[in-house]
């Protein structure tokens, strides 16, 4: 392992020497709009680029996740997965054309997840440039339908239908360089819809206001007592509604997530919120619907798992400070299937969720070296030990 680590700083310079190719991949893929459920065009570009870089196999699985395989030297070692989600939060009507300056790439979705996907398709060429080969097959998967209502369907399907064991996995996110995710909280993502009929005014003495009703829902959620252990929280993340300033709102929508490192606690909080929603719906005589958009189970590898320890060593060798947080991404699906995995970020930036998100170019090269270091660690057997 130490010999792998020693090579890493030199890798950074070699990777930087092909920055044009890496940024080109980021741009050519990132400029193709790919809202969740409409990833087809980006999938095609992903496949074209992989084929162009001469991976040994290039195909899609039954769910249309595009996959490239670089054959390993061993007949017996299970494959290593490297994945990045292809979908973004931006619709096709948004300008996806990127601006590149000396040290930045700016544009919609660049931080979620164009950098990650661009790096993923660049890996075959980066391996060649670094003269690297692996015992395991390296499976490069761009997974679809990850975000929001996508509910990680792409990765769920890919792993469910993958016929052989998987040795370990690295999930790539554009940001933030230094993150190391090796555990996932249990999570339920919900929406509450409040709709008040515009016609039946006679039903109400005072016309109810959808926004105020959701406000009441929020107040009741905030009154819930959440335990410190297991660590639990409710994040109120989205709200929308109403028509215009002087008109009572007839529609409103509230989006939130329940997160906890205990699945039981997630379920319990969900039931409490369900009661709140039903109660307020009755009280105000309005249509109030609670919908579950997605859910994942809590899963983790231990902080002293060899994969985590090796990843931290790789990061430290590259002068990166590891920051560990839970992640509700592809990682959770690997972990729930007992496949050791980590999520890593590639670079720094700003305005991550903004239409003009900015990614820094220069830190990317360390971010990529770190991914390669972890793949090498998995190939050397750190996931085989437990």
């Amino acid at each position, binding site marked *: 392992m130490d010999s792998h680590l020693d090579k890493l700083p030199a890798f950074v310079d070699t990777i930087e020497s092909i920055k044009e190719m890496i*940024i*080109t991949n980021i741009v*050519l893929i990132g400029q193709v709009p790919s809202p969740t459920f409409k990833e087809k065009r980006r999938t095609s570009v992903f496949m074209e680029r992989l084929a162009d870089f001469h991976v040994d196999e290039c195909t899609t699985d039954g769910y249309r996740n595009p996959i490239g395989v670089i054959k390993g030297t061993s007949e017996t070692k299970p494959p290593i997965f490297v994945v990045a989600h292809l979908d973004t939060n931006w619709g096709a009507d948004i300008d996806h*054309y*990127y*601006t*590149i*300056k*000396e040290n930045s790439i700016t544009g919609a979705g660049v931080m979620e997840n164009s950098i990650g996907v661009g790096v993923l398709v660049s890996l075959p060429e980066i391996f060649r440039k670094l003269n690297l080969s692996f015992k395991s097959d390296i499976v490069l998967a761009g997974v679809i339908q990850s975000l929001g209502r996508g509910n990680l369907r792409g990765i769920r399907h890919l792993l469910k239908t993958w016929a052989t064991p998987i040795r370990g996995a690295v999930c790539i996110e554009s940001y933030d360089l230094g993150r190391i995710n090796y555990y996932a909280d249990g999570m339920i993502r919900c929406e509450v819809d409040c709709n008040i009929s515009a016609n039946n005014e006679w039903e109400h003495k005072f016309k109810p206001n959808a926004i105020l009703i959701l406000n009441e829902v929020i107040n009741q959620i905030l009154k819930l007592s959440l335990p410190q252990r297991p660590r639990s929280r409710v994040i109120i993340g989205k709200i929308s509604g109403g028509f215009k300033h002087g008109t009572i709102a007839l529609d409103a929508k509230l989006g939130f997530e329940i997160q906890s490192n205990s699945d039981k606690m997630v379920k319990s909080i969900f039931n409490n919120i369900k009661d709140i929603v039903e109660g307020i719906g009755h009280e105000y005589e309005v249509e109030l619907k609670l919908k579950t958009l997605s859910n994942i189970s809590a899963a983790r590898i231990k902080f002293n798992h060899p994969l985590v320890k090796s990843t931290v060593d790789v990061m430290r060798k590259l002068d990166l400070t590891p920051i560990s947080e839970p992640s509700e991404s592809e990682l959770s699906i690997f972990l729930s299937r007992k496949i050791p995995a980590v999520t890593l970020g590639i670079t720094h930036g700003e305005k991550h969720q903004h239409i003009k998100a900015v990614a820094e170019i220069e830190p990317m090269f360390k971010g990529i070296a770190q991914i390669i270091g972890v793949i090498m660690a998995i190939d050397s057997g750190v996931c085989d030990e437990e």
Partner: protein
Amino acid sequence: MTAGCVMKSSWLEKNTFHYSEFNDLGRLVEEKQRKNLTISLCLPTLNEEKTIAKEILIMKSELMTRYPLLDEIVVIDSESTDKTREIARSFGADVYKATEILPALEQFKGKGENLWKALYVTKGDIIVYLDADIKNIHHRFVYALIGPLILFDNIKYVKAFYDRPIAIGKSKIRPTGGGRVTELVIRPLFSLFFPELTQILQPLSGEYAGFREIFEVIPFPIGYGVETSMILDIYGKWGLDVIAQVDLDRRIHRNQDTRALGKMAFVIIMTFINRKIKLGLIDLKEDLFNEMIQYNLVKNEYKPDIFQIQGHERPPIIEIPAYRDKFNKSL
């Protein structure tokens, strides 16, 4: 007279391509090497800091590092006040200020000037000219223009068209047409005077490539008229068969307002008429005026906004001794 009697309609079918016909880059490189050709990409710029890096980077990655189709990327800049030159240099292009090329000559400012001067600083047998403001830049914009030049011996000049172009064959009808100036100015003029040239679907597109031997013997207007005059001159000297056009799919660039397009149209009409006079095809009793006059409403008063065009034109660069010396050529 009907246009039909002079139209050589098979040209559209024979000399119109789609970029996908040239996406076997390995083959293009092989053929380039077999013919011992060198190829230069020229990007004329004026304040293009938002798009220039992306163009250089993609071309360098795909058409220099991965497939050695291009031998150089050259930026010819018209005194940009933003960071165009700095950014272009940092991404590995050879950057020149137009004023620094052939400095002993009288200086003009304009796109045509940059294209003309590029002939002096580039080395290629083939020169690809690409506007530097393309938002959806892709390497097809270059390899598709080079493809016909390398693969077909009769083709010497290739023009791009985009987006909503052409219908060839039965049941394959897509709306034709270019931008507003093409449809409102150039196409009517071509229809009136050179019906054959109407087959060039977007004569004003800023993306074209050709052999040096073509570019060095034609004059270059210094401004907007360069594309129009280039087509007229090439058509006049060699005929339509040396020209091809390639569908590049989509091109997204800055939208210009009607007033700006009005100025562009003015210059193009002026260039067109001057060419007709030069070719002896029409005779004007008086000189043309050289000012485009538009009006602004300022504090309830209409004030003229006058845009003056000198109509300067660079001679064929082969006529410049310094060029002949550099490239070891004679008149």
